[in-house]
């Protein structure tokens, strides 16, 4: 299974619910294309819900970082929600916890964009 992204609007925040795997190949390119489309269409407050992401490799991590910089370059922000233990571990190992704001409560995460 690749990755499937669905979006919903909570006030000014676009919540992206991601399901599946973000790995080199289809998963990474689908993720990249979706985030770039959202940024190009003016979505500047993105909250990525990764609760249903079962697997991420270094290419997937690269896409998270790329999405972060793409949106930031357009004056926006990407934050992360509901990381699995494995994704948490990856962010710890790669020190990306120092880059991303991470939440485990959606309402709190949405409020943080205000």
């Amino acid at each position, binding site marked *: 299974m690749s990755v499937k992204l669905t979006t919903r609007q909570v006030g000014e925040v676009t919540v992206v619910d991601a399901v599946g795997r973000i790995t080199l190949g289809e998963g990474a390119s689908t993720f990249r294309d979706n985030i770039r489309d959202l940024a190009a269409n003016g979505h500047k407050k993105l909250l990525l819900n990764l609760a249903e992401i079962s697997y991420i*490799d270094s290419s997937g991590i690269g896409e998270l970082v790329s999405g972060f910089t793409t949106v930031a370059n357009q004056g926006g922000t990407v934050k992360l929600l509901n990381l699995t233990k494995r994704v948490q571990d990856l962010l710890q190992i790669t020190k990306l916890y120092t880059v991303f704001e991470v939440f485990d409560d959606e309402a709190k995460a949405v409020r943080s964009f205000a």
Partner: protein
Amino acid sequence: MSLACRFFVPYTMADHESTQTHTLDLALESSLESVDLAEAAILHEAGALGFDEDDLHKIGISVRECMVNAVVHGNRYNARKKVHVKVSRTPDRIVISVADEGEGFDPSAVPDPLANENLLRFSGRGVMLMRAFMDEFAVSLREPKGTEVRMVKYKAKA
């Protein structure tokens, strides 16, 4: 999925069970399908050895990173080049070797992905993940050309 590969499963049985070795030898095409194939084959071996879910995930992601490096950076998707995968397992460990036929890779040339100035780089984290997830990790150059990565995971290493 292309299965244009050699698939040998020789068993070497010694007198004592603790020295029993099971080996797997694959020669895979330089394609992303081979990444999935190698991961599945090695996870089957590791699962048979009794690694828990957490260790299986660490082994799986390490194999993926290693295979991607071999296919993408080593062989550069060249259809005439193979990725050679060897796996041996004894009751206490799994030993994985992945070798490409590329120009050779120097891991020390990879910028430190944990340096502040590199945190937002798109790539360059694969070797770090393999080092973090496996108990042993070593890179050597092959003759006449290519790179071999050898990784070991122990079942009960504290």
